[in-house]
């Protein structure tokens, strides 16, 4: 007979609420998008037409943030033999499949390419939403806010509802939409779908807020605002700022910023743990630079060299090749992200509670435990 006995976990300090500090975390997780939206709304009242400088600024940020964020995913998967062997289909079967889709798009640019691009664009919004839910859960866990089944349902309903509303808006239009020169057809949905999606968003949002209030009252604590920030940013990206052409240009940057903050923290923590490296400022600086250089280089390869090479080899021109390659690389990113960021995996969730302060100085000096917190401790089974 086997009787599960849960070892009493030693008293450990609660995990730090922030990855870096309140300022950096707020800025990266959604604060920057709120400030940008407000500033743009003040300067350009309607945002119906994109200002010329916005395109340039968004392009620069794409190079320093968006492309590296895609590269960071690939780096995270392919740099570790363990990851590759754990996810062989993602690592070796999905890429050829996507290449086949890209080849079909190149062969039939007016037939397959529009749908290939459309698949990527639809998946992209879903992917953003998944990340928002995930980050909310991470901060909720750091804050000690229990995300139960009902809370998760309401939160997911709200966040994915904003995605559905955004899709319903774009799919309700008649005719075709355009992605870097490739036009793709809409579904021409009835307007009613958009209205219903809107009601759904607000209903789920309200339920989630009520649950939060209930938690605050029960625990006699105010929920740290950063827990709600990802959901608020999502609402801004997909609903409130959706019609602002200036703001829209920056949304991929804000999404990438969220990602990079967490991927960077994770990378440092894992590197330190696997290499048995002592916390030090020098290590963090050196490894951050190395990691940054790698992902910028891989990003440049994936999004600049690859489209140019394919454009010249297929003779289709950069205008056609670029959106197809961009779509292919990003679809692969969605696959990889889907497997390497499973929060139920302790190997993922545990380092996600790291604080950079723990990595730049010894645990005793930091006053924070590097070890996983109490709730991450696994039950130990003993034979009777």
């Amino acid at each position: 007979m086997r009787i599960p006995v849960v070892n009493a976990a030693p008293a450990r300090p609660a995990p730090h609420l922030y990855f870096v500090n309140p300022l950096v975390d707020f800025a990266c997780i959604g604060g920057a998008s709120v400030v940008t939206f407000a500033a743009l709304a003040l300067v350009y009242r309607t945002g119906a037409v994109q200002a010329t400088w916005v395109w340039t600024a968004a392009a620069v940020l794409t190079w320093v943030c968006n492309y590296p964020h895609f590269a960071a995913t690939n780096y995270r998967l392919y740099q570790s033999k363990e990851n590759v062997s754990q996810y062989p289909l993602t690592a070796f079967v999905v890429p050829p499949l996507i290449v086949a889709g890209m080849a079909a798009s190149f062969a039939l640019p007016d037939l397959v390419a529009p749908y290939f691009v459309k698949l990527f664009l639809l998946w992209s919004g879903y992917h953003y939403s998944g990340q928002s839910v995930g980050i909310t859960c991470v901060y909720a866990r750091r804050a000690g806010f229990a995300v139960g089944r009902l809370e998760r349902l309401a939160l997911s309903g709200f966040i994915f509802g904003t995605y559905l509303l955004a899709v319903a808006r774009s799919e309700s239009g008649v005719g075709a939409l355009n992605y870097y020169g490739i036009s793709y057809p809409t579904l021409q949905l009835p307007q009613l779908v958009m209205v219903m999606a809107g009601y759904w968003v607000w209903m789920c949002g309200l339920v989630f807020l009520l649950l939060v209030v209930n938690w605050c009252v029960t625990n006699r604590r105010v929920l740290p605002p950063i827990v709600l920030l990802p959901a608020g940013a999502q609402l801004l990206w997909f609903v409130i700022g959706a019609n602002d052409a200036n703001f829209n240009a920056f949304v991929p940057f804000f999404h990438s910023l969220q990602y990079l903050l967490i991927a960077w923290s994770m990378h440092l923590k894992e590197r330190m743990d696997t290499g048995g490296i002592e916390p030090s400022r020098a290590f963090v600086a050196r490894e951050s630079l190395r990691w940054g250089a790698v992902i910028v280089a891989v990003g440049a390869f994936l999004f600049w060299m690859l489209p140019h090479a394919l454009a010249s080899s297929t003779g289709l021109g950069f205008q056609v090749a670029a959106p197809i390659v961009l779509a292919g690389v990003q679809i692969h990113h969605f696959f990889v992200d889907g497997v390497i960021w499973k929060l139920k995996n302790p190997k993922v969730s545990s380092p996600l509670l790291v604080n950079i302060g723990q990595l730049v100085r010894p645990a005793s000096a930091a006053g924070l435990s590097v070890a996983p917190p109490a709730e991450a401790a696994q039950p130990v089974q003993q034979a009777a």
Partner: protein
Amino acid sequence: MRKTLFLLVAIFVCGVDAAAQETPAPRVAAERIVLRTNVGDMVLALYPDVAPRHTEQLLKLARLGVFDGVNFFRVESTFVAQLADARYKQPAPSPEQLEAIHPLPAEFSALRHRRGTLSMARYDDRPDSGETSFSILLGDAPHLDGKYTVFGQLERGQDVLDLIARATCDERHQPLKPVVVLRAEVADSPEALAGMSLRPAGYYDERLEWVKGFMPWGGLGAVLCGLLLFVLSRRLVPAAFGSAGLLLVMVAFFGLYVAYVPRAHTSRWTALALFLGVPVFFKLMNRFEGRRFDGSKTA
């Protein structure tokens, strides 16, 4: 007395107007031109008594394949959908086709420009300059009456015309997604027309025709096979088959999506099914190579 006179004049004017509106429909030629476009098929009936030269010439041009590959270069949703000049189509017309094209003398009549009317295009200052470019009226246009040759009427394919009218266009009224006459055919008799299968409104591509033969059941079958593999993984088949099943679902779903988006434009239920199917598909893909983290794979 003045009131009575005014009333009589009003009745007379209304009577004349009504008489004009009730002009008997002109005789229609036995032949029909069937425009097979990438958004569905339209049947054009021609008026040999009203515009004999136009009727004869357009039938000849259609038989020669002059209209094949010509696009609707101008779409104004409440005015006209106008075919481009066939001289400049790509690929270029053959020498035989070019030889057959010549200017047509105007055949103006009392027929009005209404929705569905076929009206020959011409240069503003040259009434006899009509050649191959003509319009299908998308709304009433009385300002064209008596100034442009009305030579026929859209007989079947109102839904196709509606779809063309809804096309998204640029500032020059050119559809962003080209609306092209894939083939213009001539049905020499009503019997011949009855033997033709006409496609309803929707976005078509001939390169997809081979797919359509097996798409609904083949695609759904592949999705179900993939789902079955996914469900049975860890029970009857090795875990990796579950994720392979999801990849099969993805490929089949993509094929179904490509095949059914055009149909969504005419069926709200199809549009709704595709709209809701996409997040369900993405949700399913979240299980791709998932693990339960107790050491065993879920898929």
